[in-house]
């Protein structure tokens, strides 16, 4: 069972221009992980931590500046456009805002068929496959002629998911795929994703900012901060025994729906704001906001190492645990 192997991935965006001079924004630095069939890896972190850049780099919507993306023995980063197009059906993506992701001028059947049309699948097959997927995705055949504005958010996201899975992908990337939905619908879409994963044995990358959703759906979780991996491990170990101060802070910031739990609970204070990714701190990028930071944190970049049941990049992880 081979999955998608990401090794040493870095993403850099050139920014600036005539007046400011060309500079480089380092969005992702040296990120490695495996996406395994039937399993879900969660990618979490605050806005600007590089989680969407990682996802986009896997499907060439962002540049792979360094590192490799190995799929079935080949490095996707080295493929030319024509070669990449051939493997593209294997790796599909579901986006956050279904109304932004769906062409408002196409009806449901056109929208779901589009990926197959792009792949030059014969027309007779297309109709059959569209009909099959519509049933699987929890939509009704009589909706086929409706346009995106006639759907609710949850229904529109089901169409987005149908588009992603109709080419029988092996890898599914969900970039905040349930964040824009009402909670009553969110849970149903999560169930749908889980069912599809089992059915198709999908390797999933699930990007989310809501830790309680991530805990529900993921097998492993990776925590990013300013483009670097802070901690990574099995979902329960990471949530119950996090050893990186940043992971602990993120978990401590997640609110509960129980007023009894919430009242009087003192939340961990975080110092200051996220530093500019244009000018990240030396050494450990989290040190400017970390309660445990000392001299070594400014001097040396901590390497990811096994501590407890997870891997963490922190000089003081033993104390934090």
């Amino acid at each position, binding site marked *: 069972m081979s999955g998608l192997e990401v090794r040493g991935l870095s993403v850099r965006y050139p920014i600036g221009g005539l007046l400011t001079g060309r500079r480089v924004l380092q969005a992702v630095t040296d990120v490695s992980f495996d996406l395994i069939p039937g399993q879900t890896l969660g990618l979490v972190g*605050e*806005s600007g931590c590089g989680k969407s850049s990682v996802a986009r780099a896997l499907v060439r919507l962002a540049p792979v500046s360094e590192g490799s993306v190995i799929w079935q023995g080949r490095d996707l980063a080295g493929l030319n456009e024509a070669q990449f197009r051939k493997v593209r059906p294997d790796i599909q993506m579901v986006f956050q805002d279904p109304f932004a992701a769906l062409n408002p001028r196409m009806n449901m059947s056109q929208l779901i068929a589009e990926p197959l049309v792009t792949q030059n699948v014969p027309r007779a097959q297309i109709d059959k496959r569209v009909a099959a997927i519509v049933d699987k995705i929890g939509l009704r055949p009589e909706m086929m002629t409706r346009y995106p504005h006639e759907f*609710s*958010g*949850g*229904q529109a996201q089901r169409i987005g998911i149908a588009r992603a899975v109709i080419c029988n992908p092996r890898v599914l990337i969900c970039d905040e795929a349930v964040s824009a939905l*009402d*909670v*009553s*619908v*969110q*849970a*149903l*879409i*999560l*169930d749908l994703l889980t069912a599809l994963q089992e059915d198709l044995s999908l390797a999933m990358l699930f990007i989310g*900012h*809501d*830790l*309680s*959703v991530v*805990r*529900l759906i993921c097998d492993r979780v990776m925590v990013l901060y300013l483009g670097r991996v802070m901690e990574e491990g099995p979902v329960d170990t990471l*949530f119950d025994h996090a050893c990186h101060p940043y992971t602990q*802070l*993120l*978990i401590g*910031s*997640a*609110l*509960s*729906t*129980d*007023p*009894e*739990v*919430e009242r009087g609970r003192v*939340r961990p*204070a*975080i110092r200051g*704001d*996220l530093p500019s990714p244009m000018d990240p701190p030396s050494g450990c990028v989290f040190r400017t906001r970390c309660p445990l930071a000392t001299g070594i944190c400014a001097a040396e970049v901590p390497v990811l190492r096994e501590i407890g049941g997870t891997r963490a990049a922190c000089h003081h992880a033993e104390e934090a645990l």
Partner: protein
Amino acid sequence: MCNIRGLITLNLGVVFDTGQTRNTGQTRNTGQTQNVALEDVSLTLCSGRILGILGESGSGKSQLARALTRLTPGHVSGQVMFGGDDLLALSEPALNAIRGRRIAYIFQDPMTALNPYLRIRVQLAEVATTHLGLSRSAARDRAIEMLDLVRIPDPQARLNAYPHELSGGMRQRVMIAMALMAEPDILIADEPTTALDATVQVEVLDLLRDLCDRQNLAMMVITHDISVVARIADEVLILYAGRMAETGPVKGVLRDPRHPYTKGLIDSTPDLARRGRARGIPGTLPGPDAPRDRCLYADRCPRAEEVCRNMQPQMRDMGQGRRVACHLPLGAP
């Protein structure tokens, strides 16, 4: 809703005119019809208390915030009693003296609510010169005082910043500071932390709670997120399809819901502290042209019976300050 005399009491309805009705898939002009956005919603805001308005998209929660001071383009009916006046009956100039001065707003996205061309100093001072008639230097002093109050470090230096130079959390603090510049009695916050990261969200929520207590503000916090209500609100009002579903003290309602929709919402929300799967609510919100002489939640409700589809449930008293609009409430004998 609270024992002390309410600062503002209202009973509201909002409808929108639509020029056309849809009929058998074809659109044809049949003259005026109306879409109901909000129906018979009544509530009271009290000084030093936070009322959480909880609802999903289409619940009418934002319409409620806007209808309060007639900021919605829809037709507002009912009354909003504040300081002996009905705000809905006031002239536009009289209402303008209340908007922003006595009743202030904070919206979801601070980046679109702030003017990107003007320094923070100018935008803050404008509120004080307009509403309080302060001089420029007095307005500046008050701006510094307010930035300090919302815990912005080094407020003097921040005064000269443009909105884009501040982080999302800082911008929302500036919005709160701006709302407080004219010393309002009532603060309406519409999804105040939805655009913020979790680490910042907690700080801003705790700041709002603290300001409510210290400044004795009456606050209405509108949100789709149960945990926001759990964290800072005293009472909660749950809206569904423009109608009140349930209301009462936060602890009672969220720990022991009476309305099946409230329970559905709670069970749908994943919680790190409460393991187990989240269950969603199948079905969708009734459309704007659906019949309203019934329980609007009935088609999604696991408890629904014949009566729910035939008769609209009225709000009824459940004791301990709790009210629910349901024919077959949970926990009832």
